[in-house]
């Protein structure tokens, strides 16, 4: 482990969202006026402490699965790693630009898929020529077909997320963050994207995968972080045990796995340590 090269380090990370216009205040003109006259601070700003002191290290070639209930801070964690959310306290360190793939991370809905592909590539820092060269393979990978000339707002959610995945995966990023992007795709797309994630890992990158599909995490990841209310409940390389604990804590029955999978996953873990 000492020789492995760290790619992402989170050091006591705290992320706070500030939400405007959240309940508490009825928001009528009179209450606002009273508040201003009384020099009170805005009552309707609510702070949401989404990540509360998270520390972990991910190494080159790792695929880190992030599991946890809805609202436990999984997506926020990925955004912080991508540098899209500034930390309130602590810090996340990465090697360079990370790209985040999320189901809700829409690009420009009014524009056609084609323009989104080109814009996405250019925004990631490709040259015009590179973007042009990558274009056919991205469209092909996304499998949206003829829809590529239509505005993205006309896409089904599955098509949209497939295209987004294809765009972000086009560039070999050192750190790839996948937020449920695969959940909406059909079976064929899952196989393809799974292969692409493996490929990115082999190209000496680190992949973070947020998924509620635990089987997917078990198949793809060699490490897992279990988030619970903004903190890490468990993390480690023993993917199966942690997933089992998570299922147990959620009130589910332990999964019966075939010995082959168990051995494969176990084997990877021992090889790493």
């Amino acid at each position, binding site marked *: 482990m000492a020789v492995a090269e*760290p790619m992402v380090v989170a050091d*006591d990370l705290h992320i706070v969202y500030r939400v405007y216009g959240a309940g508490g205040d009825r928001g009528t003109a009179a209450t606002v006026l009273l508040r201003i006259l009384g020099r009170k601070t805005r009552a309707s700003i609510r702070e949401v402490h989404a990540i509360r002191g998270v520390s972990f290290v991910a190494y080159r070639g790792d695929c880190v699965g992030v599991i946890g209930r809805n609202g436990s801070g999984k997506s926020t964690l990925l955004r912080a790693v991508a*540098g899209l959310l500034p930390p309130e306290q602590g810090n996340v360190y990465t090697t360079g630009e990370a790209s985040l793939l999320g189901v809700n991370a829409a690009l420009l809905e009014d524009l056609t898929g084609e323009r989104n592909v*080109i814009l996405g590539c250019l925004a990631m820092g490709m040259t015009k020529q590179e973007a042009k060269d990558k274009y056919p393979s991205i469209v092909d990978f996304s499998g949206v077909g003829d829809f590529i000339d239509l505005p993205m707002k006309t896409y089904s959610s599955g098509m949209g997320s497939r295209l987004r995945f294809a765009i972000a995966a086009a560039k070999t990023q050192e750190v790839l963050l996948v937020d449920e992007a695969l959940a909406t795709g059909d079976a064929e797309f899952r196989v393809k994207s799974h292969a692409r994630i493996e490929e990115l890992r082999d190209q000496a990158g680190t992949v973070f995968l947020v998924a509620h599909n635990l089987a997917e995490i078990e198949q793809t990841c060699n490490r897992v972080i279990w988030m619970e209310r903004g903190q890490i409940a468990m993390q480690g390389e023993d993917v199966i045990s942690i997933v089992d604990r998570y299922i147990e804590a959620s009130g589910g029955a332990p999964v019966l796995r075939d010995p082959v999978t168990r051995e494969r996953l176990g084997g990877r873990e021992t090889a790493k340590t």
Partner: protein
Amino acid sequence: MNDERRLSAPGHLLGDESVSSAGIQTSVLPDEPLAEFALAHGLRPSAARPPVLAYIKQLWRRWNFIVAFATARNIAMYTEARLGQLWQVLTPLLNAGVYFLIFGLLLKINRGVPDYLGFLVTGVFVFNFTQRAFISSSNVITDSLPLIRALQFPRASLPLAYVMIEFQQMLLSMAVLAVILLSPLCHEPITWYWLLAIPALMLQTAFNVGVGLFVARIGSQVNDFSQLLPFLLRTWLYVSGVLYSIATLQIRTDRWVVALLEINPAALYITLMRNALMLSQRQSAPGTKPYNARLCAEWNTKAAKYLYDSAYCHYYANPDHFWYYGIGWAAFALVVGFFFFWRAEVKYGRG
């Protein structure tokens, strides 16, 4: 490794502030402090603001993105309209048409300005450029939130792209303006002075970029700003001599107020453009001819009759310095706007 299983149910950990030091992760985390560990391996904070020069370099590398983004938005803006891109030309034409209808046909007033229609249309088009850059830039961060949250790129690309959209629009407006000024409605001759329109437009664009960056940050942080903006812009419109000549204020207002109004950036860029394109403006600007108290007083009292006699009055802000003011405003806006925007680089898209 087996230690991890000691803490199983999440309930045990909740409310425990020192999760990371609870001992379960000793096998996962290195022993040394994490920050030092990360820096020792050449990692950088992911949400760090790059230094100014590096940031400018990053921006420069995204030039293609800025252009593509501007073009794409421009196209998207009109996709719903049946006439599509034609609106880019129709909008300034209709704008000019409204002013022609009201001031050219209905009111027939000149407010002491020769070629009032040309004066008005030039003023409106130039002011519109800055006004639209202002309004669109103030929304740029909220408009592009999905993009900001999906990809990492220098955020200043976005206000730059928005100003570029307005610049493309302005070029079309300028073409319409040229046609109007040369038409029998205005009778302005085409001269070498027209070339001065290019630097005037460049300086105004630079100013708009600076202002765009500035308001983009304000708009992203102060949600009430977009409510306030129309009032600010309307005040600016009325003090900048778009609809009347600031020189006509001299009998009612202090000299230094008039001078200040004249060198406010909007009035300045409008004046530079009018002087470049309109012979009537160059001939009637105060200070053009030697001071003559009688003729000036006549113009002041019966402006409508002696339109060109304003040339015999004293100037307020020295017209010879207008180009320097224009450069100064552009440089000032660019530097201040850029730094102001850059300081909050990591905060965009948060919340």
